[in-house]
């Protein structure tokens, strides 16, 4: 998971992401990666106690693909806030413009695992758009921080 799959958008008060994906699955996965990269940075180094991976099964519906993307990110964000975890892997089992079904893996946030940087309060619908550009899908999402 590297930053070439997304870039930050300048926004005066908040933070935005421009996300790319070769298909919808890639777009949804990269958007999640970008969001959690804003929230926290994995700590490097060895000898740290390992935390047990946790898995969540998610199934969400929305009116269209754009609103589904926001529903997806919002769900991951709120689960992360409740369980104090960072999602670091996603296995998308089904993705249509109106439905997503996925099994996602997460790691607990401890002083050894992650450096927390930014609290994202919520995922907004502001300027939300998904478009096809140069053979790739591109989405823009603004987060309230």
């Amino acid at each position, binding site marked *: 998971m590297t930053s070439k799959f997304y870039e930050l958008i300048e926004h*005066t008060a908040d933070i935005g992401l421009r996300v790319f994906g070769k298909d919808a699955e890639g777009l949804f996965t990269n958007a999640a990666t970008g969001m959690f990269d804003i929230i926290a940075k994995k700590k490097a180094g060895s000898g740290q106690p390992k935390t047990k991976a946790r898995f969540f099964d998610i199934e969400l519906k929305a009116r269209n693909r754009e609103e589904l993307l926001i529903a997806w990110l*919002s769900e991951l964000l709120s689960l992360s806030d*409740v369980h104090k975890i960072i999602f670091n892997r996603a296995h998308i089992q089904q993705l249509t413009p109106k439905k997503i079904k996925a099994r996602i893996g997460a790691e607990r946030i401890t002083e050894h695992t992650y450096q*927390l*940087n930014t*609290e994202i309060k919520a995922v907004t*619908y*502001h300027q939300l758009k998904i478009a096809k550009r140069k053979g790739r899908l591109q989405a823009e999402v603004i987060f*309230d*921080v």
Partner: protein
Amino acid sequence: MCKGRLEKIDDQRWRIPMDYKPGMRVEGIVYTNEKLLQGLLKDKALEQVANAAFLPGIIKYSLAMPDIHWGYGFPIGGVVATDIDKGGVISPGGVGFDINCGVRLLSTGLFYEDVKNKLEDLINNLYHNIPAGVGSKGQIRLKLADEKKLLTKGAAWAVENGYGVKEDLEATEEYGRMKEADPDQISKRAYERGREQSGTLGSGNHFLEIQKIDTIFDEKVSRQLNLSKGQITVMIHTGSRGFGHQVCSDYIKLMLECLRKYQIEVPDRQLACAPVSSPEARAYLGAMNCAANYAWCNRQILMHITRGVFEKCFRTSWEKLQMNLVYDVAHNMAKIERHVIDGQQKQVCVHRKGATRAFGPGHPELPSRYKAIGQPVIIPGDMGRNSYLLVGTQKAMDETFGSTCHGAGRVKSRSQAIKTLDQRDILRQLQEKGIRVRTASKQTICEEAPQAYKDVNEIVDIVHNAGIARRVCRMRPLAVIKG
């Protein structure tokens, strides 16, 4: 937006005409000055003032306070009122995710000479005792039934449970409790997110600050508030934490359905809304009021912890230290209020998104102690400059639905601030000014640097000169905890 589309009304107000964008139902009015206007023309904040003018039932104008900056949907610093009897809507985006984010100001009987040798001790102990930063947890754990009581009673729940005294409630907007809170409208996820976050400061621009009054503008009002030059104050800025964020997220999703159901067209999905009289809007109001109560309870608990730290440090009671609450104001709220519109009393839904209520003298909703002077208005600045205490005015009632600005307003994005500023330089500059800073995240130092904000002095000049709030006194920071 190009300047040519704006019409100057006077030195503090510019008009966005209704024909700026087809679909605007009223014009926009922006409180600013020539200098700040140049900055506003560079991003989308003014466009958002025009977008908010699309909301069904909007009355008079879409307003922007001088600390306006680009938000999402509504601008930050936006005020919109809608006519409930004429299909007026409520929009969760017009309140924001941090429902009842707000500020409270405590006065003390202490002066700079009393605290100067204890500041290090005070700030370290406050930092140790106040949970701050991303993912911080509070000490309060409640069963669902008790959580519902907290959501219904707000700051009064805190007082009933030993966090403060009854007099604090009288010095809190709405007495710290929105009566129409309905815990049954809260999702399971919102309960889960809120469970461990009561009594936490949060992160980003939330802070706790020990300050000194450095300028008195209105001797008479200051005297009435027992405030004088050199006196120590404490300011707390936080909101409804993850609980409020989830409530807003839940209801924006619902309101997107309402756009279709009630055939409402808005230029940005984040402006999703429903008629105030609809069942969806009623449900949102019930939930939003719970979040507002959560936030007032949160600030009440944080104030209680603060009093405790001062008690330990000075080895005497907070009552003897005269640590009294001056006032607590919300700056992200929608409320059903009565206002005079074209000479007639009307019930309207006032959205204040990054704006403060500023009711003038004599308003029936003010407690007796503030009836004569008007509602105290607390305006925090950035951590290197100043903060202000003002009072509401009749002119605010007449022009802005009893509203004024809420802070300095960002001028630099967070990523720009991180890229261009060095946290060591900022800390050194603050230290040279005698300001101590404790923060959970080094990144916050850059993001929240004074250079990232407009000068609050300039913002307050505008609202004072426009007459939509009146300066009482100015504080400067001595020690700051940032989340």
